[in-house]
């Protein structure tokens, strides 16, 4: 990339940059609730389930096209950039994310330690992704790029899908954030006040699953891990109210994206990993600051 003017680079990778900015502003909002509910490990484990879904989708692709069909596409065409192939992979990513989330929630109701459950789920999803990827080399390049956090290949179709899905996440979040806060902070009080706690918890899981499935599919688990965990952690150190916490989470996410884009272009780094690195640097001032924090 050396020698290519910045303006041309931005134009060339505009969809990837826009995807990074959108994800960086919205995913930390979901991550802020994961942090407050002390379920941040979900933010690390669920993207692996989504990745497993994408790999499973590639593994089953020849069978699927032979028996079910995918809008008349051949296997070769389905591996290229097309809406039908993207929807197919997103469906698998979403199915596995929600299956993983559902299993974690259901097992959580039966007692035991949450850390152990989530750690076991992480190990299983990670190993399954590697094994399935080895068994089916189809789409290996795509999955490798996802895992490394290289998102510069994101095109207009992927950006549109990410913007629509995270747009839905943002709208649901804005409309219901107060009720979600009450249910998370004091579930019994919510029930007494007539707030439908179970429905709202299901909505929160739905928002999380949608964000994770869309994010993993388009910008990859590396970037998603970082965006769900690091900006809310940094924001918690500075926030003096719930509103400022949410605003700061989104702002730290955006700052991470801007810093990461600059670093990636300057030193030719994978964009996703560079954004996560910047998010980690933004933690430092808060950690050095005495006082409250997560």
């Amino acid at each position, binding site marked *: 990339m050396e020698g290519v003017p910045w303006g041309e680079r931005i134009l060339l990778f505009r969809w990837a940059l826009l995807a990074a900015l959108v994800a960086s502003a919205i995913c930390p909002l979901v991550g802020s609730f994961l942090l*407050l509910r*002390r379920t941040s490990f979900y933010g690390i484990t669920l993207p692996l389930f989504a990745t497993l879904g994408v790999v499973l989708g590639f593994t089953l692709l020849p069978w699927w096209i032979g028996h079910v069909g995918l809008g008349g596409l051949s296997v070769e065409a389905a591996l290229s950039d097309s809406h039908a192939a993207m929807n197919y992979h997103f469906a698998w990513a979403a199915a596995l994310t929600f299956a993983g989330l559902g299993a974690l929630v259901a097992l959580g109701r039966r007692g035991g330690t949450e850390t152990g459950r989530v750690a076991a789920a992480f190990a299983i999803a990670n190993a399954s992704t590697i094994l399935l990827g080895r068994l089916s080399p189809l789409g290996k390049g795509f999955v490798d790029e996802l895992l490394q956090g290289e998102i510069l290949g994101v095109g207009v179709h992927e950006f549109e899908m990410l913007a629509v899905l995270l747009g839905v996440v943002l709208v649901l979040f804005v*409309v219901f954030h*107060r009720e979600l806060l009450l249910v998370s*902070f004091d579930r019994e009080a919510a029930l*007494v*006040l007539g707030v439908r706690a179970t429905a709202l918890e299901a909505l929160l899981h739905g928002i999380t699953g949608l964000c994770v499935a869309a994010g993993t599919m388009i910008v990859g688990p590396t970037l998603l891990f970082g965006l769900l965990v690091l900006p809310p952690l940094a924001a918690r150190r500075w926030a003096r109210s719930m509103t400022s916490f949410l605003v700061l989470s989104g702002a730290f996410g955006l700052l991470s994206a801007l810093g990461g884009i600059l670093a990636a272009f300057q030193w030719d780094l994978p964009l996703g990993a560079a954004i996560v690195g910047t998010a980690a640097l933004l933690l430092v001032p808060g950690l050095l600051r005495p006082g409250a924090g997560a």
Partner: protein
Amino acid sequence: MPPLLRLTQACFGYGGKPVVRDVDLEIQPGQFLGIVGPNGGGKSTLFKGCLGLIAPLAGRVERFTRRLGYVPQREHLDSIYPLRVDEVVHMGAYGRLRGWRGLSTEDRRLAQECLERVGLAARARAQFSALSGGQRQRVLIARALMARPELLLLDEPTSGVDRGAQQQILELLLDLNRRERIAVLLVSHQLQMVREAVGEVLWVGGGRVQRGEASTLLDPAHLDRQYGSETADARTLED
């Protein structure tokens, strides 16, 4: 006058196993009742049954008002939430929110009034987690008042706070009860405090509920005669 809450032969428990049985109870407007008893005797189970947080295994629970104010044990609330005092109080109106709309001007004014009633209007912008135990308890009472309650239900409101704060909380509850005729039902393991503040109590122990005058039912000699070692646990805790 119709009661606010009526339990008829109600039985509450978990996993199909009853913890308290055959409870007949009516709470009238303006009453001040305490729920006391030994640890593990079923106080919390009965309290949750009255709140509607657990369904009765048998019998009937009828609530004749929707204006319930609930004050949880503050230790159950996680301090990781970066909430300001006014944000906690505003939560009391979240049951009335519809769609996009936030709190109404009326609800914001009411929140200010509720904070004034508990003596914490000046701390509205303070961090909830930075307040003392007694102050946090009063903030939670202010939040419960946002429901304009006819019946206020409190879970161990004076537990873990110093004597001065205990006194402030009790005076506040007595004032709300006398001036505004808000009925109060509180769970406590502090027998002496309940004996001094509350007219009537429900003694919950061994799966049964007995109702009577606090001065009679919580008289140490009576307790020893009636329950022997069962009360030792409860009385030790208050010291």
